[in-house]
């Protein structure tokens, strides 16, 4: 026997909450439509993930971005090797083989991807190593070696442009022939994580799961007459509204956590990197998950409210979903647009962007150097990443942005619950 404790109003409230939430959860589980919606959502995310896996396992052509694997004078020495030893690339009678001691010709492949981006040192300010020595070669003047004038010879000056964009200014010959495959995979990986996170989980699932499963939480019970059983009990209608939402979340949230976790695991193992698993991505996935859970919470309250307002509430929800689509597209190009404050998705995107900014602080630079591409950009993957990565829209640091945005989403959810509860309370039920 359990210990007898005095009952309080709160304990009895708990029981009602659990009873309605549990009932709602079981009711949803018994419905075929629930499994159809969740199944289709899983299938859609699965297909997208397959495209991603394909992008990660395929081979990318190694591009000789700076053209130094070519041999213009056909003397058997690639241009890069000739430049390194100071011989004429257009004169077949002048090549490093004639030097003392003679130098054997390099295979051309040595001069492809020979001056890669220096991933580990990616940071604002100065970075870059002249791996192939074509910047720092003999005979070049100090001003030639420091053409960007930042006082550091043979580096890449990274600065913030007028519009907050990252500007890359190379001394020339530094990181000019990056490893295209490595870049494409890293950039595509990040682009995919952001794309499926923002459009897949937060937007599509965030809207459509509540649209199909939460719009009828109250409405269906009212139209079928079964609401009479629930409302003939000592329970306020606003409570019924809230507990029904809780029951819905009981199925929608674990589903989201499972699906986001699954895709995070797949991309963590399949994604590019030195280690076995990309631990650094987890911060981004966590922010995607947070944004998705909050989006589901707000949309569930909103759509349930629309269902109470009108039995064809889904008709009201669809234009709203279209509005949200417009808003998510706006976040990609103009994450700081004021109109985004009047959406749910704008705030959810702030959460993802803030998480991405914390976990991948070098994304802006990664895009900038990819677009530059050693002077021959954009590299594959750079444009995709540029589309899906956005700055945090509030002009605050990432963490405050996340806290403020989650606060606003919570406020929106509570607002919709309050409004939905008030509408439900004023509703006459036949």
């Amino acid at each position, binding site marked *: 026997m359990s210990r007898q404790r005095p009952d309080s109003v709160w304990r*009895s409230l708990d029981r009602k909450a659990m009873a309605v939430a549990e009932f709602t959860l079981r*009711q949803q589980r018994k419905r075929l439509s629930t499994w159809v919606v969740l199944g289709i959502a899983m299938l859609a995310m699965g297909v997208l993930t397959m495209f991603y896996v394909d992008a990660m396992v395929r081979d990318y052509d190694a591009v000789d971005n700076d053209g130094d694997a070519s041999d213009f004078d056909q003397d058997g020495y690639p241009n890069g090797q000739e430049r390194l030893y100071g011989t004429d690339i257009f004169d077949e009678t002048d090549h490093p083989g004639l030097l003392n001691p003679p130098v054997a010709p390099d295979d051309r492949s040595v001069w492809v991807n020979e001056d890669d981006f220096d991933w580990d040192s990616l940071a604002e300010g100065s970075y870059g190593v002249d791996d192939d020595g074509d910047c720092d070669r003999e005979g070049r003047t100090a001003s030639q070696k420091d053409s960007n004038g930042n006082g550091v010879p043979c580096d890449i000056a990274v600065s913030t442009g007028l519009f907050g964009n990252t500007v890359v200014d190379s001394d020339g010959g530094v990181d000019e022939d990056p490893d295209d495959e490595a870049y494409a995979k890293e950039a595509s990986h990040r682009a995919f994580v952001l794309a499926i996170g923002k459009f897949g989980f937060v937007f599509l699932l965030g809207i459509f799961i509540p649209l199909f499963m939460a719009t009828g939480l109250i409405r269906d019970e009212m139209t079928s007459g079964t609401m009479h059983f629930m409302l003939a009990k*000592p329970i306020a209608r606003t409570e019924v509204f809230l507990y029904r939402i809780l029951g819905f979340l009981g199925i929608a949230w674990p589903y989201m956590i499972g699906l986001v976790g699954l895709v995070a695991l797949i991309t963590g193992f399949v994604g590019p990197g030195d280690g076995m698993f990309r631990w650094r991505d987890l911060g981004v996935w966590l922010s995607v998950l947070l944004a998705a859970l909050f989006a589901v919470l707000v949309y569930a309250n909103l759509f349930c409210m629309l269902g109470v307002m009108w039995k064809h509430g889904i008709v009201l929800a669809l234009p709203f979903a279209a509005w949200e689509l417009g808003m998510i597209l706006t976040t990609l190009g103009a994450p700081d647009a004021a109109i985004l404050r009047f959406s749910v998705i704008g705030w959810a995107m702030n959460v993802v962007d803030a998480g991405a900014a914390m976990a991948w602080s070098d994304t802006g630079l990664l895009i900038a150097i990819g677009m530059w591409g050693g002077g021959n950009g954009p590299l594959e993957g750079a444009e995709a990443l540029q589309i899906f990565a956005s700055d945090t829209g509030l002009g605050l640091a990432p963490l405050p942005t996340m806290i403020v945005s989650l606060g606003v989403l919570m406020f929106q959810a509570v607002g919709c619950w309050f409004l939905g509860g008030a509408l439900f309370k004023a509703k*006459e*039920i036949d």
Partner: protein
Amino acid sequence: MMPDKAKTGRDASSAWTPDTSVPIVYLNGVSKSYGRIHALSNITLGLSGGVTGILGLNGAGKSTLFKLLMGKVRPSAGEVRIFGEDPWKNPAPYARVGFVPEHEKMHDWMTALEFVATFARLHGMTKPQAEHEALRVLDFVGLSDVANKEIGRFSKGMRQRTKIAHALVNDPDLIVLDEPLQGCDPLARTTIMNVIRELGKLGRTVLVSSHILSEIERITEQIVIVHQGKLVALGNLHAIRDRLDQIPHTIRLVGDDVKHLAKDILDHPAVYGLSFPSSDELLIQTYHFGALHAELPGIIVQGGHRVREIDNPDDDLESLLTYLTGGGA
């Protein structure tokens, strides 16, 4: 059959305590309109204790009356109180109320036990408490052997009894049953009627609606008659019936020699007309239905007549309403 309250799951935490100085059900000048349709007009009524039958034809306003009591709709005018509280504003009194809605739709995927226990938890009971109470009331309505069967597989009568069980699980003081006998088979009907009578004996206030006079008659004598949204009669059914006896009435007899029987009856002072719709059928018109009805068996036996059927085609709600509304029904 209903255990005493001390042993039931009534939640001790209930923050609300009823006002015992007022009638359990109280309506004062209550009207309800849906647009231009007047569902109820100026109803004033106070009820406490016992079983009260709410009689009325379909669409008379019985369900609207119940919806007002259950806080489902808001009165257009007047005040509705249960246990002294306005049910539209405060759901707390429902801790002491059990409601059986008319709607047929139930949660068919649940077992009877789950259904009753789930809604019992909305009274603040713990899960084990709720299950214990659910089994108790399912036993009370005679469904303990099918408690673990899905409601979707139940007959209409079993469904009604499940609904009644769900309404009794909190051991309510007021039980409101909207057309509980509709569509039930004779066995379920009898069981439900017994349950309602038993609740009345236990001192609970029971409101039961029906559009069939004979059904209500078998349950209670205390009736409220609603017609076209108005309260046309309130009181003891027999008292109303006695007055009904004084108005022209028809008795229908079916037998082999109704013409000979007619001769014996013709002289009776209460009879003012006879007719023969068919060779074995006799219709008797009378001003004193009660008196004639009492003497009729004696006359039949004395004359050695063989009668297969006696009934009163006028003894239904429509006739009662015709009388009560002065022919306007």
